[in-house]
């Protein structure tokens, strides 16, 4: 008996100390990590949507646009304690579209998509990919314009699915799973938009 008690105590103690340490470190790094994700993933995707709306940007213009997007970060409560952050894309200085990030299950893990919705009509203005770990050369091609432009001007009555599943999107050859993941993510974002667009439009002004 004594032997087992010793084992349990040793293992529990090690696990406890490890838990406390990691909890502390998580608190310390959480904010920096969130800022990094915002700066290197979400903002570039939102800037991509800005480019679709207002045309190609030079590197200098991109810096200003990204700063502008960061200051136009808004959020609303989806349900209790669950906040959704979104960005407002402007056209000629006026709020034009709201971008919502959502996820689909890709071939190499979660695939994050930023979808931009027109503030008045609710149509999709464009998409940008935030997180991607798909196969290079196959699934990673979902970032190409050729694929992503198919989603522009789709509305709530459109079937956002690949053609194989009865939708209207041409999947990328050899990358049906990745194409499906993008469609699923956009459909999720659309569901959020449909349910909360009044709140979003209000917060965008």
């Amino acid at each position, binding site marked *: 008996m004594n032997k087992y008690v010793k084992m349990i105590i040793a293992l529990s103690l*090690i696990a406890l100390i490890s838990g406390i340490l990691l909890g502390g470190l998580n608190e310390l790094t959480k904010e920096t990590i969130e800022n990094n994700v915002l700066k290197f993933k979400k903002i570039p995707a939102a800037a991509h949507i800005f480019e679709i709306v207002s045309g190609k940007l030079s590197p200098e213009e991109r810096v200003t646009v990204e700063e502008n997007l960061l200051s136009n970060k808004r959020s609303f409560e989806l349900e209790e304690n669950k906040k959704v952050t979104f960005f407002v894309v402007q056209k000629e200085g006026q709020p034009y579209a709201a971008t919502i990030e959502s996820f689909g299950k890709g071939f190499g893990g979660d695939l994050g998509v930023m979808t931009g919705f027109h503030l008045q009509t609710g149509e999709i203005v464009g998409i940008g990919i935030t997180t991607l770990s798909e196969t290079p050369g196959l699934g990673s091609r979902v970032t190409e314009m050729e694929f992503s432009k198919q989603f522009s001007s789709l509305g709530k009555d459109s079937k956002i699915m690949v053609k194989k599943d009865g939708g209207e999107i041409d999947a990328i050859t050899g990358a049906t799973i990745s194409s499906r993941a993008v469609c699923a993510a956009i459909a999720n974002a659309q569901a959020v938009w449909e349910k909360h667009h009044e709140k979003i439009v209000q917060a965008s002004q």
Partner: protein
Amino acid sequence: MSTIAREFTKGLWDEIPLFRIVLGLCPALAVTTTMENGLGMGVAATFVLVGSNGLVSMLRKIIPNEVRVACYIVIIATFVVCVEMITKAYFFALSESLGIFIPLIVVNCIILGRAEAFARKNTIVKSLADGLGMGIGFTLALMLLAGIRELFGAGKLTLLFGDTILIQHPFGFLQQAPGAFLALGLLLGLMNVINNKIRG
């Protein structure tokens, strides 16, 4: 040579992880597409190795023999999660390019191997020296493999020369998984030839 110095230097040649004890091949094949990734992976693994070796050695009289592997894995996993958070917070680009291979350090055979084979039987100072030597050896091996793959596969060495193209028509397949096996095999053979020459 003092014993501590010997524990340190054996990881650099006699028992260099990748080439002589041939452990830790999964990250070695997967992330060595650029020298920068090789260095990042090596430093991350070294940190975990030194930390876990030190702690395992410190607790070697407390940890009951029957649950020792479970204890080692908790210790190793703790250090790995630390590394993961730190790279995400301060080296975001690196954490993006290493991706899943940072959490996978938990199951890197070198680290558990050193805890089981060395740290649990030796003093803290010796274990730290062993961990540091092995870690640096692993880093050097990764950088060598990554350097060869990047130079001949992509035609440049970003870590040393920036974006300058050094080779006009690189063999692209060296950047793929089969190229990694080929490069590693050639290096292993070369190491054996040199070793045989030294031993006479």
